[in-house]
């Protein structure tokens, strides 16, 4: 018997409002409630509600044989609570079936693992607590933001008590090896790794509706046929994707819901595959090898690296400016500031600053509400300056009269007009 592991990323960032230089010091509401509400309702209508209903129907129909897993970011859960209680209820119903696993991640879908182990751990703990409160299960599997993983991150995750982690089956890491097996962290700490089969995942998530694609139109039967071609010694196919694939990235008219509706019966009826959750897979599968990932990888873009979020000048300066505030924020008691701190860390803010494909207007543009990466950057920095002032205010920190490390009196005197020189 072989296994299919479905995992869906459910995430919506708290988008910033247009925040101008002149807002600094006057407006401390950074997030665009109107837009965030609007987008949440739109995606709820097109994706979350109908897809959750379909998942529930499929789970009931297949009597425990159809299983799936989710990681829902904390910042998304907060927005469900604010704008989409109906969506939250439907996820709770799914949780009640016992066929759905909810995974842990950073609360704000952040890049904290790359900046600060302390902040990373604090966010993971906060998220796990939230998941347990809402869905009654304590997460045992970890999925980092956008499947970002490295040996070092694996160490942090293991230290937090997780035995299994999801990441990308990137070519540059696997080389000739297959993603359809279980691997483990390179340091020997025993952290098990499930790798995304990006070929089959992306057939569903990216190529499904593309008429120019040779696989089009993709049916459940055809997909089952592809799965059947998996070599005999490979054990698991990990289909990892954005949940918004259903109805949002792939619109309803592409037939994505029909495909999903028929997929479980096609797989269960025409193949020797069964559905498993990540923790189930982890319970009976043994790692075949250690996976060396010295530099962080992700599931984004061709490069499968971090360059969607970090690496250009504006991304790096924004990121460093943010985490320079960490020590101060840690001392703050104010809840609003703490929450803003979380939401400002969401990876999407840095994604909007990506200049890689700016000229081509590609997938990055689709996911950004800014006209250019520079607009996104300047907007973010304005917010961050106000945030820094708010942190200082909250801690009672006054900016001292400039502490002068060297005096310029002599040279300054030379620069002054006549009539002023004697004043120095």
């Amino acid at each position: 018997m072989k296994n299919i592991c479905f995992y869906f990323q459910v995430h919506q960032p708290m988008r910033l409002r247009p925040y101008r230089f002149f807002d600094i010091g006057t407006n401390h509401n950074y997030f665009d409630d109107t837009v965030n509400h609007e987008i949440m309702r739109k995606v709820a209508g097109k994706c979350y509600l109908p897809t959750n209903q379909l998942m529930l129907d499929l789970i009931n129909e297949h009597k425990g044989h159809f299983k799936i897993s989710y990681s829902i970011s904390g910042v998304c859960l907060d927005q469900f609570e604010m704008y989409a209680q109906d969506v939250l209820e439907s996820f709770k119903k799914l949780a009640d079936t016992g066929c759905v696993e909810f995974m842990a991640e950073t609360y704000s879908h952040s890049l904290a693992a790359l900046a600060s182990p302390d902040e990373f751990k604090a966010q993971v703990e906060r998220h796990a607590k939230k998941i347990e409160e809402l869905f009654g299960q304590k997460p045992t599997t970890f999925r980092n933001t956008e499947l970002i993983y490295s040996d070092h991150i694996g160490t942090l995750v293991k230290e937090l008590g997780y035995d299994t982690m999801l990441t990308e089956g990137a070519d540059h890491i696997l080389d000739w090896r297959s993603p359809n097996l279980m691997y483990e962290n390179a340091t020997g700490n025993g952290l098990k790794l499930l790798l995304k089969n990006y070929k089959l995942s992306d057939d569903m998530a990216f190529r499904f509706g593309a008429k120019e694609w040779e696989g089009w139109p993709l049916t459940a039967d055809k997909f089952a046929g592809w799965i059947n071609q998996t070599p005999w010694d490979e054990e698991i196919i990990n289909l990892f994707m954005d949940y918004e694939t259903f109805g949002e990235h792939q619109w309803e008219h592409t037939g994505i819901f029909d495909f999903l509706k028929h997929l479980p019966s096609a797989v269960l009826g025409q193949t020797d595959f069964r559905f498993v959750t990540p923790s189930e897979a982890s319970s009976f599968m043994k790692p075949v090898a250690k996976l060396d990932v010295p530099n962080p990888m992700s599931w984004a873009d061709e490069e499968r690296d971090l360059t969607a979020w970090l690496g250009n000048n504006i991304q790096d300066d924004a990121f460093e400016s943010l985490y320079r505030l960490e020590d101060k924020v840690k001392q703050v008691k104010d809840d609003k500031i703490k929450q803003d701190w979380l939401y400002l860390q969401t990876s999407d803010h840095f994604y909007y600053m990506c200049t890689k494909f700016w000229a081509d207007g590609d997938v990055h543009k689709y996911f950004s509400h800014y006209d250019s990466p520079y607009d996104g950057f300047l907007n973010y920095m304005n917010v961050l300056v106000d945030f820094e002032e708010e942190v200082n205010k909250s801690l009672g920190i006054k900016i001292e009269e400039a502490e002068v490390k060297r005096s310029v009196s002599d040279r300054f005197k030379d620069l002054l007009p006549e009539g002023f020189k004697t004043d120095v």
Partner: protein
Amino acid sequence: MSEARKKKVLMFGWEFPPHISGGLGTACFGLTSGLIEHGMDVLFVVPKLFGKEDNDKFKFVSASDVEVNFSDDQFSENLKKISYLQIHSHIVPYVAPEEFLKRKDLDVQELVNNSKNSSAKFAFTGKYGKDLLDEVSKYAVVAMQVAKDQEFDIIHAHDWLTFPAAIMAKEISGKQLVVHIHATEFDRSGEHVNQDVYNLERRGIEAADRVVCVSRLTRRILIDKYGVAPDKVFVVHNGVVAKPKIVYPASKLPNRKIVTFLGRITFQKGPDYFVNAAKRLLTIMPDVHFVMAGSGDMHLQLIEKVAEMKMSSRFHFTGFLNFEETNALFGMTDIYVMPSVSEPFGITPLEAMRTGVPVIISKQSGVAEVLDNAVKIDFWDEQAVADAIQGLLEHPEIAKKLASNGSGEVEELKWEYAALKLKEIYLDLLKNK
């Protein structure tokens, strides 16, 4: 004084308040107001009236409303003379929107052939759009009709856009011409001058009986690079339009010091020197904030540079600011810096000074010639800029004295003085005729 007819100036200018895009319109307003106060008549020809101009105080001709009668033989002869306007290369105007870089050309000969024995009006946007040269040419055609219809004593033209028009007016009327240089092509484009614009400037200057410019700096350029005879070119420094004092909102960052650059973000304004000076200062005073207000072709490049220097949390870009926002920014500003590489005059430091902000200005600006209460630096001397900022922040009493003396000094830079000088130049010309 006898009741002799007032002397009348036929003045060509591309913009007039409130519809302006830069200092040129403000200068046209100040000079015209001043001339009127000094008892002269001014008929101001704009490409287009936008409807909010002060028609009680000023007399306008809108080129868009003038019907040109081509049956006049004198016109068709003169039209041939502006065939040089058929320019087939790309031209950068002084307010430089990128769209302008491509345009189709007006074939003047075609116009003459098709319009004979008929009359026509021309549409103008009055902006600096992609059809700017087209409009410059049409404006020159309209100028003939204006010169024929109107009574006047002397012609005055502001910057190259209006030079072809002024030349036509001179051809038709035989009146003397004063051209006014607010900025040369060298100020706008550095050493990469647009040859066609330069040629238009030269034609205007050569056709002129007197050349007026806004600073000794510009006069030097006109003599050195345009070959103007020194005794033909006169300096009339700009003034400042008197405005009621505005009360500015208190700083939004109460504990922070703010150092401001405000202007087009383009090579000639020296914005990169400002960025480098900021870097030098931040290593010493890490909590000073810098603001770069404006837009321009170096905008993105400098955002990148500031980020690369890891200063983005202390260096802010506001984008283009309107009048109220500019005032609000000055209200927050502790020090204003204008590190221009080449600035024929430079009105913004005066605006800053009037609001009580001490200024640091480059010696390579015309305004440095008229100001005493300012710190003057060479634009390239980033360390001096950093030292001056640090010194002013360390010595608030000096900053305060510079600011208060400065705002008094600015009040004395009046357009009426500039206009009086201009009137003397006119009268001298008319006397010699």
